[in-house]
């Protein structure tokens, strides 16, 4: 069953609000760094997987085609995969199946987003993710669905805003140590709770910024991995699930799509008790409550229990289960697909003990990264181990 697949190199750009670089140039920077990380050359790479979220951000139709030379895809088998916000982690699953199939031996996975191209403000691009006939005429925005989901989550489990705001405080603090971080400011619980209300219950500091940036990793089969590094990080499991598009027919309090994706990845990884078997986690945190929501979906705690774990400090870098030690999207930034891959890179660095100031206190042999997207609909999970 399936050949072993490892990550051997990682690279990323700074995450910034407006990059001067074109999307291709951002992709090149990240890709070149990833190759340098493991001392590989582009001609040693068999295939390329590109991940990027909607074309409307960059303002380029067929964005996967447009980006491919910057991503090292020239003269190579290249595919661009796409599951909305879940893309960054899914792209790793896509790279995994290239190599696990035995058809491809080495593969670049490159994720890029240049949201700043969209005018006048990138958030407006989200209007067109809604159903063109039954929803778009109501002029919805992205905050609506987050707020609707957050409200449902809070109400179902009787949570208060401060239970949730702690995530923003933790992640923004963690990001102070990340060289790519877009937001380097420490905030207090009061700052979050007093920040302006955008869409009750969502306030400004509950939300990650819009960003430009790119990330890349090098994935290889077992034989190449052993040759190029003494510390390969193995893909132990991958999982993804997409729930129905009829999101107003679902209970938003619990992300069952994340659970399905996690169960698929855990099964492949042989993880039977995720609370003990997972040592560090990077769940997707575009909004602070999402980190909690996703911890529950990932079966890292009982439903409605993630806020307590956070309040008890268990998810801090020196806690039992460090969560988003990178600083997450809330701190490092949210260039959609690149943000998901940033999480995979963080787990790679943590497992290798190369996370520098961000290195978690406990010893970690297995970690996971997870992303989420679409109409609160898709879960993508990668379990990594050494």
């Amino acid at each position, binding site marked *: 069953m399936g050949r072993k697949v490892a990550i051997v190199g990682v690279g990323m750009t700074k995450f910034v609000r407006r990059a001067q670089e074109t999307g291709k140039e951002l992709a090149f920077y990240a890709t070149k760094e990833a190759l340098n990380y493991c001392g590989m050359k582009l001609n040693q790479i068999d295939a390329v997987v590109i991940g990027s979220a909607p074309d409307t951000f960059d303002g380029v139709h067929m964005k996967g085609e447009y980006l491919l030379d910057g991503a090292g895809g020239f003269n190579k*088998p290249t595919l661009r995969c796409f599951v*909305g916000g879940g893309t960054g982690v899914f792209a790793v699953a896509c790279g995994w*199946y290239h190599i696990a199939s035995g058809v491809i031996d080495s593969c670049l996975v490159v994720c890029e987003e240049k949201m700043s191209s969209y005018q006048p403000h990138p958030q407006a691009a989200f209007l067109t993710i809604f*159903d063109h006939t039954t929803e778009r005429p109501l002029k919805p925005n992205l905050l609506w669905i987050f707020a609707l989901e957050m409200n449902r989550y809070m109400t179902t489990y009787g949570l208060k805003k401060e239970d949730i705001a702690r995530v923003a405080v933790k992640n923004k603090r963690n990001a102070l140590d990340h060289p790519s971080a877009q937001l380097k400011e420490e905030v207090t619980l009061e700052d979050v709770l007093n920040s302006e209300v955008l869409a009750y219950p969502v306030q400004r500091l509950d939300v990650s910024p819009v960003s430009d940036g790119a990330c890349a990793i090098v994935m290889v089969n077992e034989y190449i991995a052993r040759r190029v590094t003494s510390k390969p990080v193995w893909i132990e499991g991958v999982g993804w699930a997409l729930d129905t598009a009829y999101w107003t027919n679902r209970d938003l309090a619990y992300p069952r799509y994340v659970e399905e994706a996690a169960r698929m990845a855990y099964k492949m990884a042989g993880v039977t008790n995720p609370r003990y078997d997972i040592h560090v986690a990077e769940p997707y945190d575009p909004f602070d409550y999402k980190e909690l929501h996703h911890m529950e979906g990932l079966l890292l705690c009982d439903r409605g229990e993630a806020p307590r774990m956070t309040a008890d400090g268990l998810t801090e870098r020196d806690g039992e289960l460090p969560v988003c030690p990178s600083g997450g999207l809330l701190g490092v930034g949210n260039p959609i697909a690149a943000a998901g891959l940033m999480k995979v890179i963080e787990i790679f660095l943590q497992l290798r003990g190369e996370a520098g100031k961000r290195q978690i206190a406990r010893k970690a042999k297995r970690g996971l990264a997870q992303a989420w997207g679409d109409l609160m609909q898709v879960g993508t999970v990668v379990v990594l181990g050494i």
Partner: protein
Amino acid sequence: MKVAIVGMGITPLRPLSPDLSYKELVFSAAVKAYNECGINPRKDVDTFITCAEDYNEGTSIFDEYTPDQLGGALKPNHTLTQDGLQGIIAACLQIKTGYFNIAVVEAHAKSSNILTPDGIAMCALDPIYIRPLNLSSYFIAGLEFNRFLHSSNLDPAICGEVVVKNHRNALKNPYAAFPANLTLDDYFASEVLSFPLRKLDVSEGADGACVFVLACESVADSLTKKPIWISGFGWNSGTPNLETRNWDELSYVEKAAKMAYDMAGIRNPRRELHFAEIDDTFSYKELQHLQALGIADRMEIESFLKRESYPEGSFPINPSGGSLGMGHLYEATGLLRLYSACLQLRKEAGSFQLPKSDCALVHSWRGLPTESTACVIISNKRS
């Protein structure tokens, strides 16, 4: 591990399809595909792949809307922004990992719903160096076509022959949207879009959906009596940049074909295969692709086209009518070629059935302004 096509469904291509939404179109193709192999998608399918582009759908993050009509809700689904043939390849890769037994691949087009195809096509052009020139994307085909005629020293009439052949082939294909009995005179009377490219050189958009079910070797035989085996596949991209590409060679097609031929153990495609369904988005592309795929070389292309490429010839090309005769289905175009070829291999092509059709090459191109391509080799024998 071998992979087989065990079920397929299609909606007949039409220039318009006002009675069905895209979801309903896909549902109807999916029901046919699942019925062919007797599966229940809610229980039996392990992974779903949809090929779609946001701008062609008019929706950002279109993958949101893909699972329900396929029976894929809450299961592994993902989108590729590629031609459906790359979707087939992704399904093969997934099955070959050993973790997936049954995969579904879907693509569709509602060309009739796109009011501004030219405006949308322009959004695919480089925003810094090309798009500000404010030129319809047809100029790329015009430049390439003209360069092709110049460097191969061919008469434009040969492209007229491709147009005539493919539209005529479509006359016998009940799924085709644009069958026609044309002559070379009709071709030369057709308006020039971007010299030397004429309107009849361009395949017209149609509406339709296509769904495939693929299975691993161990379950394929239990699902169908007529499995079609995928014996090789390859895909490749050149450069998206108009400035750096080699306009005289389609090395990306050569590379993709070599990958597929090597996997299938084919040394001489013309001798070892029986026919091909290849990309003819533009008439001249069929000729370029024939050469790059190693089917006919530059010296013999004219005689090959006139003598061998017809349904009664030694190596029929696009007996279905191709995109010119059937209609262009955007991301579903490659699936349409594959569907047509599978019908031949199953001996179910009815009035356009070829006498000799046990193995074939299927090829697709991602369209302007790209250099992305895919090849799949299929056979009705396990080999």
